[in-house]
């Protein structure tokens, strides 16, 4: 019994070769979820205790130990107490959201405080405004889901993504165009800051209302930024996907939980690799950060070519490892709760095409772009021109959708930079999206024309070099610092090839 892979496997020939010569690969040794005695043992109290302890240790690399224990305990309780699932999910998710707002230094309060400074409002606490905004959002989301379930002809039910982006744009406009001042503006800003991280979760929830077998409202509300992934990106997609992927038998649940623990441990291995890379290259060999390398170039004090390249490659590696770490952490905890979710990152180094890289690197981000940008475009546009249709839909997802997602994620910059500043500083990422989308679109069209990458060693090496050269060079434009213009980044890229 194995968890379905969401992305292609490319290692079957090597695995078969190993098996033919009687070698037991490391992958086979680690496949403890395929050994019946381990699966049986994991369902006992002792087995569950071991899973709990190992998982808490693994999650502790990211959270305080008590938060890790609460998170893992909640996930495992959800899996093992079917009668209390809805209550645990709803209570766990929203308690986690409130704790994150109340207990720690957090972005929501910081962002509200930033607007309070701009508007010279000092007589209310950012926490109170955050709590008020969260209460308004909770009631509003519940009501909108209820309405769209009841009346499927409503615009928000038919076009959830457009409706939600419209709300985001209106709130954003009201907060940034100085139409409203003082406390009312701070109140609207608080609502925008609380609403924004839920936008894509709510989009999945609203889309689910249209399905023949819509999820119950409590479940829908419980998976709006569920306790296992309090991020902007819905790891595990929406309620419909989560319900279908839930383990259907005690054996499936046991296998899923073991896979969850393995993924959490793997996340820690990746974190260690990242720490080792930073220690070896940044601290010992003094390889600069990407931003520092660009600053030095612009100041006319360029690093030597190998060091400049090392800065770009190291930055790409750190970013890739961080993305994989986050994804494994969130999916690992979701698997402890019993959701048989595909991994978020799956052997991106083995990608043979750009499209495969996009699929393997950040699966849930790609799925979001496909669900809300690719599919609607694909169904409506250029139906008589298959290649143009495929290219344009891919472009809308990887380009337009990608840009919108990242601009919305950083909406808080409006408080400090204004809407104009936020847009101008986004130019480099917009350029990144344009080039990425063009590359992916062409890759898609090429695949649809029957191109099959070579599986020979030389062919694989060629594919690896092509895909990762593209990714590394493009990374120069995607780093989130927003401190360099496109021209400056292009000049830096040119310098790496000795052009400038």
């Amino acid at each position, binding site marked *: 019994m194995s968890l*379905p*892979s969401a*992305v*292609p496997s490319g290692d079957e020939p090597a695995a078969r070769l190993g098996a033919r010569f009687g070698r037991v690969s490391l992958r086979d040794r680690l496949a403890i979820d395929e050994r019946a005695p381990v699966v049986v043992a994991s369902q006992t109290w002792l087995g569950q205790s071991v899973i709990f302890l190992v998982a808490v240790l693994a999650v502790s690399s990211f959270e305080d130990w008590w938060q890790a224990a609460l998170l893992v305990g909640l996930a495992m309780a959800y899996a093992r107490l079917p009668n209390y699932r809805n209550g645990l999910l709803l209570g766990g998710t929203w308690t986690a959201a409130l704790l994150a707002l109340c207990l720690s230094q957090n972005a929501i309060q910081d962002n509200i405080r930033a607007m309070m400074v701009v508007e010279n409002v000092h007589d209310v606490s950012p926490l109170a405004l955050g709590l008020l905004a969260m209460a308004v959002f909770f009631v509003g989301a519940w009501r909108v889901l209820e309405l769209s379930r009841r009346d499927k002809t409503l615009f928000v039910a038919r076009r959830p993504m457009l409706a939600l982006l419209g709300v985001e744009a209106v709130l954003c406009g009201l907060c940034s165009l100085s139409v409203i001042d003082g406390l009312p503006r701070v109140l609207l800003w608080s609502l925008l800051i609380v609403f924004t991280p839920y936008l894509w979760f709510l989009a999945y929830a609203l889309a689910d209302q249209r399905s023949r077998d819509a999820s119950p409202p409590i479940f829908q509300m419980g998976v709006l930024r569920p306790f296992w992934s309090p991020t902007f990106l819905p790891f595990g997609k929406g309620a419909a996907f989560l319900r279908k992927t839930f383990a259907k038998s005690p054996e499936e649940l046991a296998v899923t939980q073991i896979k969850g623990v393995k993924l959490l441990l793997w996340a820690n291995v990746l974190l260690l690799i990242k720490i080792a890379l930073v220690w070896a290259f940044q601290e010992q060999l003094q390889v600069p950060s990407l931003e520092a390398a660009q600053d030095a170039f612009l100041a006319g004090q360029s690093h030597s070519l190998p060091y400049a390249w090392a800065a770009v490659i190291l930055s790409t590696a750190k970013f890739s490892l961080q993305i994989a770490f986050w994804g494994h952490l969130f999916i690992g905890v979701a698997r402890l709760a019993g959701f048989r979710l*595909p991994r978020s990152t799956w052997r991106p180094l083995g990608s043979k095409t750009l499209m495969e890289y996009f699929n393997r690197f950040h699966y849930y981000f790609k799925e979001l772009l496909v669900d809300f940008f690719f599919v609607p475009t694909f*169904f409506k546009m250029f139906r008589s021109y298959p290649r143009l249709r495929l290219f344009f839909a891919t472009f809308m997802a990887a380009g337009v959708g990608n840009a919108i997602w990242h601009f919305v994620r950083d909406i808080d910059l409006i408080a400090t930079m204004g809407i104009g500043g936020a847009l101008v500083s986004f130019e480099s990422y917009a350029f990144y999206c344009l080039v990425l989308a063009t590359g992916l679109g062409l890759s898609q069209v090429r695949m649809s024309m029957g191109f099959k990458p070579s599986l020979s060693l030389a062919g694989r090496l060629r594919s690896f070099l092509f895909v990762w050269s593209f990714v590394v060079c493009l990374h120069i434009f995607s780093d989130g610092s927003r401190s360099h213009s496109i021209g400056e980044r292009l000049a830096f890229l040119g310098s790496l090839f000795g052009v400038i």
Partner: protein
Amino acid sequence: MNVDGKLKLRKFLKEALEKHGDQGELSDSESLFVSGRLDSFSMMQLVMQLEEAFGLDFSTVDFDVSLIDSLDEIAAFVDANASA
């Protein structure tokens, strides 16, 4: 959908699953997309295949993945919407 059509469809889906490293069995009622066995891009490939083979127009349908999530559902969808 006739038997021949269903066989062709099964062959297409099996190939798509194999491309995803999934050598498992495929029953007629088994979930393909919502379960994660196939991803959204495979779904689009399937849509194109269905449009070409059966003259379907997906732009006129209030699309939901559960409409084509299994072999049985695809067959029922084709029977209800095929123009030829």
